[in-house]
């Protein structure tokens, strides 16, 4: 489970002074559910997710992830979280097997457990053919599968996915969508940030629309449609975000 309470993140900017990248964001994501964080570029999605993954510390507020406070127990949080983002890359000179083993060890798994998990993940993700090849020879799809395996090696109860389909081709993106659904089916807590409306419609049980660092709307798709009187999610987003960006 993820529970964000009045999350705040401020940065100092030379020109703009203090900037509130995330401003008083609160939401709850239950196990076996996918929470979609919808927002334009620069809305505060990545900063929110980085705080939940304990990569950066909140300036105010707090969050409890998998039962641990992100501020006081960051290592415990990271041990229970799988974080996958477009910006989390792989080591080109390692093989897929070595990559999985490396992150398995860093997550405290012993060699026997790593071997079992590698075999399981390779079978589930159809990675057997390229498991012992170096990552820098991989296609985008192979890299994506390896990233998923890296994220799941310690079987985390929470998945934080930050625009995971960014820059992927259609087939690789479909693979991610399928993987997220399977994670939900296994009872994992999933938070999924994107600016692609169709992905939200396909995947998310609840949606939070973030804009200018603030969570401006939240609910199930049905609730949002009813509240804003629009069927199309894009129209709802534009209404919430306050109009067209380009006239």
């Amino acid at each position, binding site marked *: 489970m993820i529970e964000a309470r009045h999350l705040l993140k401020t940065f100092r900017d030379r020109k703009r002074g203090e900037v509130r990248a995330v401003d008083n964001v609160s939401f709850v994501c239950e196990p076996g559910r996918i929470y979609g964080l919808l927002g334009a570029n620069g809305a505060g999605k990545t900063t929110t997710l980085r705080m939940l*993954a304990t*990569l950066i510390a909140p300036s105010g507020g707090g969050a409890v992830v998998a039962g641990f406070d992100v501020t006081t127990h960051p*290592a*415990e949080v990271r041990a229970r979280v799988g974080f996958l*983002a477009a910006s989390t890359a*792989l*080591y080109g000179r390692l093989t897929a097997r070595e990559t999985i083993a*490396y992150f398995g060890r860093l997550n405290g798994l012993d060699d026997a457990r790593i071997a079992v998990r590698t075999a399981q993940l390779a079978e589930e993700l159809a990675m057997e053919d390229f498991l012992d090849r170096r990552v820098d020879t991989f296609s985008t799809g192979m890299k994506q599968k390896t990233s998923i395996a*890296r994220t799941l090696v310690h079987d985390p109860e929470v998945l934080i996915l930050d625009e995971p389909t960014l820059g992927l081709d259609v087939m690789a993106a479909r693979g991610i969508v399928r993987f997220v659904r399977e994670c939900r089916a296994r009872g994992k807590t999933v938070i999924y940030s994107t600016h692609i409306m169709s992905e939200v419609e396909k995947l998310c049980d609840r949606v939070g629309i973030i804009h200018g660092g603030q969570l401006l709307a939240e609910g199930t798709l049905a609730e949002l449609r009813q509240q804003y009187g629009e069927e199309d999610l894009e129209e709802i987003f534009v209404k919430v975000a306050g109009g067209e960006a380009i006239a």
Partner: protein
Amino acid sequence: MKLRDTLTVYRKELRDALRDRRTLVSMFLVPAVIMPAIFFLFGAATYQVVKTAKAQPPVVAVLGGEESPSVRAALAAQPGLVVVPAPDDWRERIADKRLRAVVEIPARFDALLASHAPAEVTIYHYEGEFKSGFAVGELRRFFGDLRERALAERLVERSLPAGFARPFEIRTENAAPPEKVGGNTFGGFIPYLLILLSFTGVIYPAIDLMAGEKERGTLETLLCSPASRIDIVMGKFLLVLTVSLTTVACSLLSMTVSLIVGGIAMVGTGRMAATLAGEQGAATLPSLDPLGVVGVVVLVLPLAVLFAAVALTISLFARTQKEAQTYLAPMVAVVILPAVAGLLPGVELNSTLALVPVLNVTLACKELVSGEWPWAHLALIFGSTCVYATAALAGCVRMFGRESVLFRT
């Protein structure tokens, strides 16, 4: 801090580095092959140039001396010179390197010699030009011999002994032991090379492991793991240090081999073996105190830690690999300058200089390879370098904890 996580990161970085051609080149190829090859080729080329220059007698011209046929004839017969008549534009020809030197013989030189009157021979040359200097040497030798012969004749005329005009001889002989001669000759150069290589050895891995990982996005992947930031940075630091020390070890090994092979090539196996065995007959061939070389390595150790920590910190601060290169390239000069200052004559180890990083190690190394062990200064140098290295490492760990730096893209 968990040692298991530090070692996990270190082992992964080591495996990664050993698969990276650029790291292998900077770690093994440059110190073990390229540097000795450059020195060897440079030495061989210099030797060849000097040999060729000496094989070609310099062209010199004679001004005046028409009334002195004997000296002109003797000069023309001198085997190390090609004597030509002096053209009108002889000064331009010297400047254009078509003539190496011109010697001006005073009027009635033979007669002046015979009458014991004073005379002055002038040699015109190109200051600083190698072949012109060589011609001057030959001319000075010729006229020096001529003067000696004239003096001997005068002494005979007056029935005076040969020692009359040369009451005593001056002879010089080296009294310092060969390791001290070696220390003085190579003492500054060897640590200079080791210090330079231990720094250049850290540059590429430091850039790749911090700025490179930030740029490629792998650092964020690593930060998602439960490993603490101190474990991650220590694992990376150990790898950079390993590369630096391997570079130094390869360089030491190649220098030892080059010294033995070069020594055998230059002076023959017998004399080289005698030198290595420390026999008295080999006293003129410089050697190094092996224990001193071990001391040098011990002093370079904390310096390598300092270099690795500083390079990692700078690389971590940079947004991209290019930015890191821009910051680290001038650092080479910062390292070289104190190392070069240690080679300057008159710069000797004292309590103040023992606290100046890099320079202190260079000066101490000069003493060590000469077989001198100034313990108080050595302790000060080792201690102060350890303090600097610890502070730099602490700064690096602290920097790695700053999210504004880690996510500075």
